[in-house]
């Protein structure tokens, strides 16, 4: 397995995602002889995982079963160990499209954070692109570099431990796209500008507060960026289920035949009461949902 290439069977050293049921997952690193405890019992790596096909059902020691899934950047995003607040798939998807990322793209990113977006970028730019990622926190930078190695994508990424606002990305004139997720992106705009190829490219800055957006847009305009555009994307997850609605009782009626017609196949008489009701399949909105993640500001760096 690798995060940029599918494989059929599980091997030692792989990261696999254990799917325990309804939005409950855990990532594990496969090691011969190792065991992982789940609420359904233990999974023995040597016999239950190594050599098995990704996507197969694995029975745990207590008799319960789980599925083992091939890792993807999207599964990693919902399973990774948080070292910082992370970007989620909805924002990542839009960043990827709006930055025109594709195989071969050279991308500059800061900060690396927990590597949620980094994995998605690497997946998209492989096999010939490169990611230059900058993280000013030494421990996080080191951890990210280690993860990239474990996930077999280290050849596609360079992690630099420096302050992007002061020292830039460590590269000049190479980038097709630049992504900023830092507290003061306006301080990094001149460095971002230098990182771009001469023919220019696309920039994105992610900020939770509108004041940050305001200052970033001013800096972008000052530095000659074009097509500056700020958007916000929210995702709603719909819960599919059957709902039962009772029918009102208006009392006896003259036209008895008509009420019989009303009682179509959908109208069911509940077993223990005489209330007629209708059951229908519907999708309900969640009671609570993420109402804000951050503003995404995109811009084009023109040729220059």
């Amino acid at each position, binding site marked *: 397995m690798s995060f*940029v*290439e*599918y494989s*059929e069977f599980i091997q030692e050293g792989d990261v696999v995602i254990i*799917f325990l049921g309804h939005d409950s997952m855990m990532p594990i690193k496969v090691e011969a002889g190792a065991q992982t405890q789940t609420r359904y*019992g233990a999974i*023995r790596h040597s016999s239950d995982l190594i050599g098995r*096909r*990704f*996507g*197969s*059902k*694995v*029975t745990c*020691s207590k008799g319960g079963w789980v*599925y083992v*899934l*091939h890792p*993807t*950047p*999207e599964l990693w995003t919902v399973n990774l160990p948080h070292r910082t607040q992370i970007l989620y*798939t*909805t924002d*990542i*998807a*839009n960043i*990827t*499209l*709006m930055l*025109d990322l*594709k*195989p071969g793209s050279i991308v500059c990113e800061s900060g690396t954070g927990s590597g949620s977006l980094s994995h998605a970028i690497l*997946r*998209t730019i*492989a096999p010939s692109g490169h990611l230059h990622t900058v993280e000013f926190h030494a421990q996080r930078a080191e951890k990210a570099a280690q993860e990239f190695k474990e996930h077999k994508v280290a050849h596609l990424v360079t992690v630099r431990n420096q302050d992007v606002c002061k020292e830039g990305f460590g590269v*000049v*004139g190479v980038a097709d796209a630049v992504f900023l997720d830092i507290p003061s992106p306006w301080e990094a705009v001149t460095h971002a500008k230098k990182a771009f190829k*001469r*023919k*220019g490219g696309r920039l994105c800055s992610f900020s939770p507060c*509108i004041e940050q*957006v*305001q200052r970033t*847009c*001013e800096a972008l305009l000052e530095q000659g960026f074009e097509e500056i*555009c*700020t*958007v*916000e*994307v*929210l*995702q*709603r997850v*719909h819960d*599919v289920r059957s709902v039962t609605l009772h029918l009102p009782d208006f009392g006896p009626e003259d036209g008895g035949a008509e009420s019989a017609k009303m009682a179509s196949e959908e109208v069911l008489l509940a077993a223990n009461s005489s209330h007629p009701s209708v059951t229908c*399949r*519907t*999708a309900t909105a969640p009671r609570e949902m993420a109402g804000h993640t951050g*503003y995404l500001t995109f811009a084009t760096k*023109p040729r220059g």
Partner: protein
Amino acid sequence: MAHPAVDSDEESRISEGDYVVLKRGDVYKSVQIEKRKKVIFEKQWMFMDNSVGELYGSTFEVDSGGKLILRKPNNTEDPTDTKGAGLDNRHIVDDGKSQKLTRDDIESLKEQGLKGQEIIQQLIDNSTTFRDKTEFAQEKYIKKKKKKYESNVTVLKPTSRILAMMYHGREPGKVCHLRYDTLAQMLTIGNIHAGSKVVVFETCAGLVLGSVMERMGGHGSVIQLYPGGGPVRAGMESFGFPSHFHNTLHEFPLCKVNALLSGTLNVSEKDLDSQSNGRSDEQGSSSQVSTDRGDESSSEPQSMEVSTDPAEAKKKEDSEKLREQKAQEKRVRMEEKRKRLAAAAALLEGQNADGLVIASRFHPCPVLLGLLKFVAPSRPFVVYCQYREPLIECYTKLREQGGAVSLRLTDSWLRHYQVLPNRTHPVLLMSGGGGYLLSGITVTADAAATSGSQQKSGEPAAKRIKLDEIKSTSDSSA
């Protein structure tokens, strides 16, 4: 700034035959560069000739003869200087007489060949209320006039982003109202990347297909399943992919899926010929995109009508020759088609695709359940539908059937912001809906489901035995 030598301009020059996207304001149009060909964009005639040899991203002004004149990057400065501004609008009265230039005056200015900027300056100079407007209102006024009188056109290299925005803005009906942020979700959730084998079924003019191909960068393979007589690919063509991308693209007719699954698909020449003769005739005109074929069929009846009496015999002879030539061409095409069908069938037969992307005007339920059979376990799939209800049905069926986990029915909201000093707020108008997505991940089918259909025999059963062994050993040890 130091520039590395690899950053050459040559690859970013516009050449004849290129597919490009014209941009004016927020409006896009995809065209192919052809010399001496008239292009209409935003109520303006133009010839693309002068763009050849210039760099992508260049902005041109269109003169009255439709000629493109390259705009130098340094004359984008705002010349409209505004001295003085009001504080509020308490004294501004709408009497309809604030503009001293009449419609005829403006028309004559245009006819004199005055540049857009100059006309705007004239409008400002002749507006009695302009100086009393607030600074913000002045800016807004100029912006509005610029949009009307400045005819700048920028020539861009096509990308998924640009084409998806273009289709959503111009022809949402052609792409089943798929909004670009929804397309973005599809590509990401589907884990589309270089080196994989992806099955695509779409009726979005080829936009989804092209976006998938862009993300694969010419590595791996894409199998497009198509309804009717042939795949629609206009949107994909607009990407202007290099020719090696096309080698990774395969197509397979939806109406042969059952035959392929049951092993009765015959890709020998004779069978194909007799099968698709009738079909391609009846559908040739409707959905076939290969334009040359469409032209061919329409040219024949025309010529017959035009030349009526003079040389009846010669005409007959000619048409006979033409018919024979066409028959020969058809045989070559059929052979080519047969080869391509066999290649696509071979790719699907393994039932080991790495992903499935569906975005069509058809009911998604049968499409998804049918095509999911081609996908390997532990691979993502994503289905787009403009409406939510069919996806609810899909979700329910898939739950009953098994073979998929992590099912999610989602949609997304996209809100644009105006960000200006002291005037930051969400844009007044937003898109009401960008469609719905059902996504999930395939897993190996249960034993019950396996015995029902004709799946790969033996394998799951063997695993079961192995599992039981493991279970019993671990139980005894515990």
